[in-house]
């Protein structure tokens, strides 16, 4: 596989508790892309993300990130999990949360370095929350909370940013602001965004990855009502799926 791909997945299958979740997945995402992962609930979106992060192991096939196994390049990935598992009343400040992104970057016991604080500050600037360092995590609004978690992911100084449903429960304005921020970040990072909502995404995304047991890829320009209904199953209509070879050419 060529190494100028941020993500390259080949013939991947994955099953969980004996149930096949993903089958025969082939997917490449080039460096610098803004890819959106869409699909119905239970279709395997989050599973695909966890395979890319190396948190799950494929049953067969392979996943490469920057040409290597995911575990080997985890430090280059910034990750925003579905935040719903977090305890919003946890006693931490915004700075503490963002600094968690520095973990694993060096072998330090306990104390963070001065440079870490600077990187954390820059990450907060990137998401438009400068000056909020000392605020308690519990005092943030939904939109701010998501931004803080993105800042934490940026604090890893990643080359690839993976966000799992960052816009759930956000009002339309906060959602739009978030996508504007991501659009700016895409100038220097590869972004993979899981969403069940295509409305804003198509403005920025260069590639739409549809996950529903297996994976189909659409260039954003082709996402129309037909593709939408194919993804969400509102109506049954035939849709042409582009399959890509490893080198990115259409088959």
């Amino acid at each position, binding site marked *: 596989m060529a190494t100028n791909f941020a993500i390259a997945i080949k013939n991947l299958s994955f099953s969980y508790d004996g149930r096949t979740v993903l089958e025969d997945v082939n997917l490449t995402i080039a460096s610098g892309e803004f890819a959106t992962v869409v699909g119905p609930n239970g279709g395997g979106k989050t599973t695909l993300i966890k395979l890319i992060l190396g948190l799950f192991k494929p049953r067969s096939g392979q996943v490469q990130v920057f040409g290597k196994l995911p575990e080997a390049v985890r430090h280059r990935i910034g990750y925003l999990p579905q935040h719903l598992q977090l305890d919003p*009343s946890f006693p931490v400040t915004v700075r503490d949360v963002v600094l968690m992104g520095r973990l694993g970057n060096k072998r330090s016991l306990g104390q963070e370095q001065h440079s870490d604080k600077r990187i954390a500050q820059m990450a907060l600037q990137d998401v438009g929350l400068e000056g909020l360092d000392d605020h308690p995590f519990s005092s943030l609004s939904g939109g701010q909370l998501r931004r803080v978690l993105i800042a934490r992911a940026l604090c890893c100084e990643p080359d690839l940013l993976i966000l799992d449903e960052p816009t759930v429960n956000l009002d339309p304005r906060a959602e739009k602001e978030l996508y504007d921020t991501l659009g700016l970040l895409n100038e220097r990072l590869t972004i993979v965004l899981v969403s069940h909502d295509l409305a804003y995404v198509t403005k920025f995304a260069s590639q739409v990855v549809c996950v529903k047991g297996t994976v189909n890829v659409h260039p954003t320009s082709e996402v129309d009502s037909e593709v939408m209904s194919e993804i969400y199953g509102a109506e049954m209509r035939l849709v042409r799926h582009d399959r890509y070879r490893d080198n990115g050419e259409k088959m």
Partner: protein
Amino acid sequence: MTEFLQAVAHYSFMQNALLAGLLASVACGLVGSYVVARRISYLAGAIAHSVLGGIGLADYLAVVYGWTFLKPLYGAVIAALAAAITIGLVTLRAREREDTVIGAIWAIGMAVGIFFIVKTPGYSENLMSYLFGNILLVSRQELWLLVVLDIVVVVVGILFYRQLLAVCFDEEFARVRGVPVEFYYLLLLCLTALTVVLLVTVVGIVMVIALLTLPAAVARYFSRTLWQSMIVATICSMIFTFAGLAISYRPDLPAGATIIILAGAVYLLVTIGYSLWRRRHRVN
């Protein structure tokens, strides 16, 4: 109060009691904050109750087989650590049966303890003091063990603060950052186990969860970060144990129970006060 202070000045058992309380408070504030933040007080309860199994077995071996080197407190440490690691592995590996297994460890630990305590020849009045606390019976020798436990808990808890914080806050993210999440989770449970042993000497097995969690729960209202919560919880716990001992001394009340009632009352007042204060702030 003056009577209490005179007693502390004159009687070594009162000094030992006070020292044990203050030592336990430090570990309690530090580990209690982790436990409350990570919401594992139920696990701490199971660890506490399995301690009785270790105490009972150690006592039995000491009396029946003459293993006098095996003090009940050593048995408590071993049983607490064994329970912590078992519970840790169960919660990591078999999430769907978690509550069943934890409930079982809770009860089996107690059953083993009662079994051996009853089968041990001689007095079994110790059972009550282990269950409800025997702070006035803490010996110099036990005090030294408490010092060692305290140092271990505090040093490890502070040294790995960032890692433990990250694991408590967001396990999955920590894993992606290459933090060995399972290791730190087990480490946290082992720290909890050692803290539980410290607290058992103060308030007894049955009331450990309250002293472990109430100071940290009070502290959360007054702290923005976990380390602030640790400091406030330590101070709260020291006040509770000191005041509990002082109040219980003259009327000859059970010290452990007094400490817990005091802690519970303060927690209740702070919670009510906080919600009233918030309501008022919202109206204005």
